[in-house]
């Protein structure tokens, strides 16, 4: 627990303050080390190593393409179903993995949380960052698919990518912070969450197109992942013109999720070491 500040005051803490952000910045190296650890440890003692980051999205793509694309004939806005579903899966996997791992991040690091001080926000943030690395790896397949199906993303689309990643990042982080705070006290979260994530996938246009909701498709925008995936498809696969209003609504929704998550987290943070 290095603090570069010369005088430190310890007293009953209440809420979020500017000092928290300062502290996180001071601990950015630790953030990096946690991310590096999580990534490194995951593929240690595995036979194919990092290739596992590719396995899940590829397998899902194949299975979904076969059953939903071929057999059920789910419409895919006029683009080949495999690439259509892969764009959805890419973002969805990032979001859902990040959300579930973040919810457990305090518990999996219990032994550290009870023994050393550092801004607790570091743990959830580094967990999401680890998943960002996976996202990067899985993107290789998307590039391959785009070459194969001759898709050229438009420039605006490429510029939008960082924004889409940022939205996914903060939505997963916000939800994860909220769930992690509850998880410290009620371990039920750990058991219920996988189920809810699965349900959540079906109300997000991952394997289908949001156009099936017809004129009510704007309602879906309140689910930030819906906005992210729709925009990603529009940008990479030209399924529709880019809908700026949709992006705005989803962006605001994810910011709100982040704010709620952070407030709840900060409110309960001080008891973590006592009740974990």
């Amino acid at each position, binding site marked *: 627990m290095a603090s570069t500040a010369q005088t430190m*005051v*310890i007293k009953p803490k209440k809420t979020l303050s500017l000092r928290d952000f300062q502290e996180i910045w001071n601990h950015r190296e630790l953030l990096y*080390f946690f991310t590096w650890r999580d990534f490194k440890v995951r593929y240690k*003692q595995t036979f194919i190593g990092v290739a596992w980051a590719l396995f899940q999205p590829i397998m899902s793509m194949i299975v979904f393409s076969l059953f939903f694309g071929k057999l059920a004939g789910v419409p895919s806005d006029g683009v080949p179903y495999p690439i259509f579903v892969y764009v959805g899966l890419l973002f969805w996997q990032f979001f859902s993995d990040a959300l579930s791992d973040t919810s457990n991040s305090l518990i999996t690091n219990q032994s*550290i949380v009870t023994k*050393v001080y*550092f801004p607790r926000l570091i743990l959830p943030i580094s967990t999401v960052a680890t998943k960002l690395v996976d996202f990067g790896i899985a993107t290789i397949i998307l590039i391959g698919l785009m070459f194969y199906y001759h898709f050229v993303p438009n420039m605006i689309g490429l510029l939008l990518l960082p924004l889409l990643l940022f939205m996914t990042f903060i939505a997963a982080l916000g939800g994860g912070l909220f769930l992690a705070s509850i998880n410290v006290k*009620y371990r039920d979260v750990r058991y219920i969450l996988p189920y809810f994530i699965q349900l959540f996938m079906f109300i997000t246009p991952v394997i289908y197109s949001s156009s099936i909701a017809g004129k009510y498709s704007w309602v879906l925008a309140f689910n930030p992942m819906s906005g992210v995936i729709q925009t990603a498809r529009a940008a990479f696969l030209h399924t529709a013109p880019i809908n700026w209003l949709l992006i705005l609504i989803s962006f605001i929704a994810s910011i709100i999720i982040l704010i709620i998550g952070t407030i709840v987290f900060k409110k309960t943070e001080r008891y973590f070491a006592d009740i974990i």
Partner: protein
Amino acid sequence: MQNEIVISVKNISKKYNITHQRGGYIALRDVLANIIKNPFQFLKQKTKEATGIAKKEEFWALRDINFEVKKGEVVGIIGRNGAGKSTLLKILSQITPPTEGEIKINGRVGSLLEVGTGFHPELSGRENIFLNGAILGMTKKEIVSKFDEIVSFAGIEKFLDTPVKHYSSGMYVRLAFSVAAHMDPDILIIDEVLAVGDAEFQKKCLGKMDDITKKEGRTILFVSHNMDAVKKLCPKTILIHEGKIKKIGPTEEIISEYHTSNKGLSHDQDIYQDKNLDITLSQLEILNHEGKIVSALQSGHSGSLRMLIKTNQKRDSIAVTIGINSIQDDKRICVMYSPLKNDTLTLTPPQTYITCQIPKVPLMPGQYHLTLKATSENQTLFYLPGKVDIEVENGDFFGSGKLPDPSWSGAILVDHNWQSEHLK
């Protein structure tokens, strides 16, 4: 400069709400099951809690702690288990916030509540040095500059790139301590981390600690059960008793205070009471060879366990049992049973001392659970398994000043003699 105050602790208190659960956390299932089983009870309870009628059970782990530490001071903190030492340390290292009060700290703080925090078994020694260093608050630059020193102190050069899960426990602990010992903060807060490794490495650790403490301007707070280490390292000591500071002063004085005036295991409350049988086990005290009440038995020395029993009924020929269990796995180590020695014991109103004297305590230093039992003509007066804990301290059992290393994992000490004989 030397008189500059670097740690100032003002009115620090810490309250815990006691919840009666099995685990540390609550399963929603249990909450729901309770609601279904007893909906009205639950509602009543909740309304009471909401309106503030129901009292939550509170426990003050620390109450009004005040002290100051000057720059360059090395201060020991001692106290019985549960006195609040660890809580104080956790507050000082910001792991848990105080309920009341304020602490001001000037300078960079490093806290060491455990060695090897965050070590990951799958990662190599090299990787763990960086990870652990970062967790302890070192910058990457610092770690890089001290890397060789850390490795050579731990003596693991050959295994740097082996996952630490393949390390022997000795190597693991050496590496963990080595990283910690190379933190370079202005203020160091340490919890009993010296009790690691084999005897030789412990000596090395103590030596290193000595170096660290003698370094110019380094301030250290050191919590320990190891009185020898406290004596060796800290000129000044704080004695904590039941969440309060009992005394601050020169170490020698405080340690003798800890040993004698600290009323052993006696509490304000009786240990056990049975109104039907009219019997009260009021206290259990530990006496040293001089008959003084102390807080712990000492290996190799004479000591006694004394129970104070209150009753209004005279009982002849009672039999008393004291069982000693190890605290790690709760296995029975030995039983002392009065009929085994044909000793007759009598309970006389209003109160009687029952004393079990052990001429030469054969237990390794550490904590033990006691089982206390008394019977009178086949009627059990009390049976208290694991209700009381006692502590055994370092003592000179063999007359050589040495004891086996705790890592050799023996619970009892057996006196023995060695000889070699030349055969022609």
